């Protein structure tokens, strides 16, 4: 390819006092990449049972100004959303991603909620999305992009509401990756990552002015999770 490329790679090898790696060395690195071995995973979440992990998720999320309502079934989600909005004095007009995860929620039971499904626009005040996983270790949400989940919906609306299923709570980032690889593995064994994976831990913030924490720098000012705690993990 380019001359610069060859020169840079050549300079690296010269500095390391060797030529290109030979076949066995390359195979070793290919094996390391394919193994996906985990390094040390802290005991904090890994040592808990699933219910304990869900509780830890909630505690860690609340520590970073995420708010959270727990409901027992999908049927209760619309009421939880409506209550949250009225409590915060927010409009009941929402943009919702066309995510099939949200399809089994009986939104019609709360006709006051005015829902548009699609990509968020600048004028949307409140957005609602699903997610791929919740990481208990730090109360982090893992979201992935796709035709049903445009990334901008995670950032444009001032208030971001996320529906998370209990079974989606995973102990660690590593567990999140394992689940993502499993979900995205094609027939040929290759994993096709989505264009964007967003790990979100609390609402947008900045401390760039005198180290004072302010919420809502560019992304959402409010991050609210409705956790559907419907039984043990599969």
């Amino acid at each position, binding site marked *: 390819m380019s001359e610069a490329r060859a020169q840079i*790679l050549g300079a690296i090898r010269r500095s390391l006092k060797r030529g290109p790696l030979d076949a066995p060395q390359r195979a070793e690195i290919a094996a390391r990449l394919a193994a996906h071995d985990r390094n040390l995973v802290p005991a904090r979440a890994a040592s808990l049972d699933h219910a304990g992990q869900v509780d830890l998720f909630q505690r860690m999320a609340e520590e970073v100004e995420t708010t959270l309502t727990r409901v027992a079934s999908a049927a209760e989600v619309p009421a939880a959303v409506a209550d949250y909005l009225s409590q915060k004095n927010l409009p009941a007009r929402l943009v919702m991603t066309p995510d099939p995860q949200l399809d089994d929620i009986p939104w019609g039971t709360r006709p006051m909620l005015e829902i548009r499904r699609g990509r968020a626009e600048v004028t949307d005040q409140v957005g609602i999305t699903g997610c791929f996983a919740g990481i208990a270790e730090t109360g982090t949400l893992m979201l992935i992009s*796709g035709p049903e989940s445009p990334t901008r919906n995670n950032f444009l609306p001032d208030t971001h509401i996320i529906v998370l299923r209990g079974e989606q709570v995973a102990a660690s980032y590593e567990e999140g990756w394992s689940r993502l690889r499993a979900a995205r593995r094609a027939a040929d064994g290759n994993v096709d990552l989505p264009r964007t994976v967003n790990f979100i831990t609390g609402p947008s913030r*900045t401390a760039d002015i005198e180290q004072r924490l302010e919420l809502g720098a560019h992304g959402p000012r409010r991050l609210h999770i409705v956790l559907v705690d419907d039984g043990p993990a599969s």
Partner: protein
Amino acid sequence: MEPTSNAFKENAHRALADANLQKALGMMRRGFPNKRATALARLPEFDALREQAKAIKDHVLENLDLYLEIFEQNVIAQGGQVHWCRTPQEARETVLAICSRLDAKTVTKGKSMIAEEMALNDYLEQHGVTPVETDLGEYIIQIRKEHPSHIIAPAIHLVKEQIAESFRQTHKGLDPARPLEEASALVAEARTVLRQKFLSADVGITGANFCVAETGSTVIVTNEGNGDLTQTVTKAHIVMASLEKLVPTLEDLSTLLRLLARSATGQEFSTYTTLSTGPRRADDTDGPGEYHVVFLDNGRSAMLGTEFQDMLRCIRCGACMNHCPVYGTVGGHAYGWVYPGPIGAVLTPTLLGVDKAGHLPNASTFCGRCESVCPMKIPLPRMMRHWREHEFERKLSPAPYRYGLKAWAFLATRPPLYRFTAAVASRVLGWIGAPHGRFRSLPLAGGWTQGRDLPAPEGRSFMSLWAERRKAGP
């Protein structure tokens, strides 16, 4: 940015006399270190993770050529492009060529130290492309026409009154009656102005905290979400990265991420950690149409295999500067180039040449705190010492310093004489400084004692205590 690192002394003098800066630095010294300590106390595995992180990066550096090739392959497989640039000029031209092809008028930018290193903004501006910084701190210093003074908190040298004044000067249409005393009002004002910029920008440029070889993904870590809007709503996403950002797998990435936020801001995890892999997919309704990774070497390949290789493990968390007594006293601008604090003292002479930054390694007390807090266990003092010796050999140091060091070397190589002199000097200093326990000024060390007091030696020297312990047995 024209380096002024050789003027460290003058820069430092100015910094010490700057009341706003001193106030701002006071807030920093109280802030970051406490938060980091709290976060570490909550993660008993922290030290074990450091060891593993160091091993991961060492392994990558030993095999860097192959990891870069694998990363490139995977970027291409996902429909992206990788550009290799030896020098800042090549990198500037590469970025401009992409912008010109897309007929870009405005680019929004997430924080990128590499973009700072290659002075990208000035270059784009000269060629008719308007760069808009979107990280709040970067935005503030951009409108003030300043440079970042900290790698993770670029506007840490400012107090809010200065920021309010800059907003009033730059934001046309800002109601003069609108109060901007509170930080929250300033954040809201910047958010409104920058929202418009995001939406009208053609190209988004971000840095990369990591590049994952396994997947061809680049990773950014932010708290504001600016880097996400930057890359999501534009035609093309350009990622600026230096060669050493590679990590093998997503698992390795996870290990490094556990160290980064805790070391940087004391957060358990930063608000946004984002992996970007290629351009938007065919059926996506969102995301950039093009994805480019621009690698800049700029002297890094030459650091491999030398005493400076360890520096390439750096994940730019900023802990070393947050804990550095010199940085905490003079701030980042005194270092005169892109990287302040201990990493600046090592990187600036390495990347720019010792003649442009030879005095920086002297901007250190060799207290060792930077190395002890570094999550990647980088021996910063050892590397500074190396440059210091190198500089001394080349006789670039000012005369009083050279004579001082020579005298020290003369004594140090003659242990009995050293012990005697040290004992005398210690007593004399102890006696002069005794009433307050501190020296307000010392001959030959004015630059040091102006911003802080040198503690007077208390009692006896380390070596005499050591000798006594040895005699007494364990």
